[in-house]
């Protein structure tokens, strides 16, 4: 199924939760219930971080609300040997790949990741801040898998705004030329801070970029977890079978502000937000599950409570985890510190002792 000719995003489930197509193979209600819970884990994780930021404990945070279906699709189609390489907004996909929530929480405190909270390598690169740069890293990782003849696929996340960066286009081109086993998910959430998708590119759909780089392009409703799963699964299988990369544009929406430092009322019509709230991915899946008779309001309340306390626990672990000392900036600059760095670290240590005396 090539979806690059589609004029509207591919859907399996409509916004009311009604099935428009067949359930993708292998998906059970059990699985969907898991995903439903995961959606709330992602959302509450994000909400909690906003709260922590308001308390001055987390650094600037970019909320994930509204993009949970896309995130779950990205993570759920991967196997442990696969790689995930995304931006700050793909934290939900990292969770869906199995990256521990506490490790993500730790990072929001404003330190490099804490490997001991990650545990065994999850093959997730620390999510990227500099727009689109990660798409090249992901393609390189995928190229290495191919060269080493390892059966691993790399899932790459990138935003609609970031798609304008040269690096994104170079990544698509390298992926095409080297038949990299990669899936590039362009998470089009409608906005890049205050810049709407329509101003980001004159193309009707961003996935039209695919044809110019010789790969299939697909368009999917990013709030329909079934459609995301189906399209991404297909792309991952293609990649795994040596058939090269795919570009998928997932059309979704950022419910909240760009970050805790942003005020979207300056540039965004509240009616637009309302429109998209009705297309909330949690709502859609919930409606379906209720329709199926496996879900009700009471269960919903329960699971959200459960998730909330789980999220709080994870935050507690992370926010009580030991942090690097004030001279931590020297650690991990190189494998072995240079004489100059050792000297500068000494300098700093001496100065930190002196601090009290001077003040």
């Amino acid at each position, binding site marked *: 199924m090539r979806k690059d000719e589609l004029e509207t995003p591919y859907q399996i489930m409509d916004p009311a939760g009604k099935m428009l197509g067949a359930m993708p193979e292998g998906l059970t209600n059990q699985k969907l219930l898991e995903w439903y819970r995961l959606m709330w884990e992602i959302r509450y994780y994000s909400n909690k971080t906003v709260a922590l930021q308001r308390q001055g404990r987390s*650094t600037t945070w970019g909320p994930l609300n509204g993009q949970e279906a896309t995130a779950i699709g990205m993570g759920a189609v991967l196997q442990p040997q696969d790689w995930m390489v995304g931006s700050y907004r793909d934290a939900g996909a990292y969770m869906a790949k199995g990256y521990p929530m506490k490790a993500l929480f730790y990072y929001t405190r404003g330190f490099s990741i804490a490997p001991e909270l990650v545990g065994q390598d999850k093959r997730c690169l620390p999510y990227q801040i500099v727009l689109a740069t990660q798409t090249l890293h992901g393609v390189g990782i995928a190229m290495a898998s191919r060269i080493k003849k390892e059966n691993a696929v790399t899932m790459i996340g990138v935003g609609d705004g970031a798609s304008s960066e*040269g690096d994104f286009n170079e990544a698509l081109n390298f992926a095409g030329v080297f038949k990299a086993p990669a899936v590039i998910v362009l998470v089009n959430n409608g906005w*890049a801070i*205050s*810049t709407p998708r329509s101003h980001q590119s004159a193309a009707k759909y961003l996935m039209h970029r695919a044809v110019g780089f010789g790969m299939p392009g697909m368009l999917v409703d990013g709030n329909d977890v079934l459609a995301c799963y189906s399209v991404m699964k297909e792309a991952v299988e293609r990649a795994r079978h040596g058939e090269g990369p795919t570009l998928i544009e997932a059309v979704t929406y950022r419910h909240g502000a760009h970050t805790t430092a942003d005020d979207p009322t300056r540039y965004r019509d509240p009616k637009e937000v309302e429109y998209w709230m009705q297309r909330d991915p949690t709502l859609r899946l919930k409606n379906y599950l209720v329709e199926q008779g496996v879900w009700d309001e009471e269960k919903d309340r329960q699971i959200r409570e459960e998730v909330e306390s789980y999220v709080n626990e994870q935050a507690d672990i992370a926010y009580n985890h030991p942090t690097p000392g004030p*001279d*931590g*900036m*020297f650690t991990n600059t190189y494998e072995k510190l240079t004489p100059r*760095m050792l000297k500068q670290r000494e300098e700093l240590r001496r100065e930190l002792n002196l601090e009290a005396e001077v003040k």
Partner: protein
Amino acid sequence: MTLTATKLTIIEALNQALATEMERDQRIVLLGEDIGKNGGVFRVTDGLQARFGEDRVFDTPLAESGIIGTSIGLAVNGLRPIAEIQFAGFMFVAMNQIVSQAARIRTRSAGMYHCPLVIRAPYGGGIRTPEMHADSLEGVFLQTPGLKVVLPSSPYDAKGLLISAIEDPDPVIFLENIKLYRSFKQEVPPERYTIPLGQAATLQEGSDITIITYGAMVPVSQQAAHKVQEETGASIEIIDLRTIWPMDEEAIIKSVTKTGRAIVVHEAPRAGGVNSEVVSIINDNCLYSLLKPVARVTGYDTPFPSPGLEDSYIPTVSRVVKALRQTLED
């Protein structure tokens, strides 16, 4: 009607400078990410799109090389672009357009074309921004000839220097310290005035030691100087470079020849930074006046750290105090 000076933050002073100049010179256009409706993430361009229209203040797609590359074209074709890079760390994305293109249009074309382009970018740590949002890049531009590099430390200077940068017929990198953006207000005359690029300001005169600094390290240096003056009675001269390229060698030489002692204070990494060039200028011109080694109080030679560690990376008052004391010792 007489205009009276109002107290403004650096952000407000910059906004005023932009408005004033756009009013005067129809060739000026502003471009960058989120500078239109949103007024820039720090609001430096607040209200300017509403006032001057979308042809003169426009948001670009997210592509820094694209912003600078098209700005070069705008400049060559008779406009006066002022490009905003959302955070200076992302200038690395545009480095080729800045260094191999903007800085060389005039030489390459033997003066047939030139590139009157101002690149504005916030920089510097201290407010817990994410990775690459706090890096100080000015030192890099010492090794990339053809540019001018300005770093104001006060609202008054910010306005006067920005107007000079806009007037300048060659590309100017205009770096705005994030921490200083709103940290204090100062009287800023509402009328147009300029401060020449390449001229340092002597913020206080002194005879025992010279502090050479700029940007966010100006108030830090002032506090440290105050403390050491109180403590030791030393007479401390403070020079705010304001423009690090061209660098005001005269001011440095004159002061150090007089005081015989100097410290250089900045936040950027140490190796090959502005401090190294200042030390070298002293070496070249007034080494024999120097009584003690010049102390270098700077960021460390590590990547700018995670926000949780930045406080021990950025030079503090106590580090400057210590350097002053040591350099004042016989």
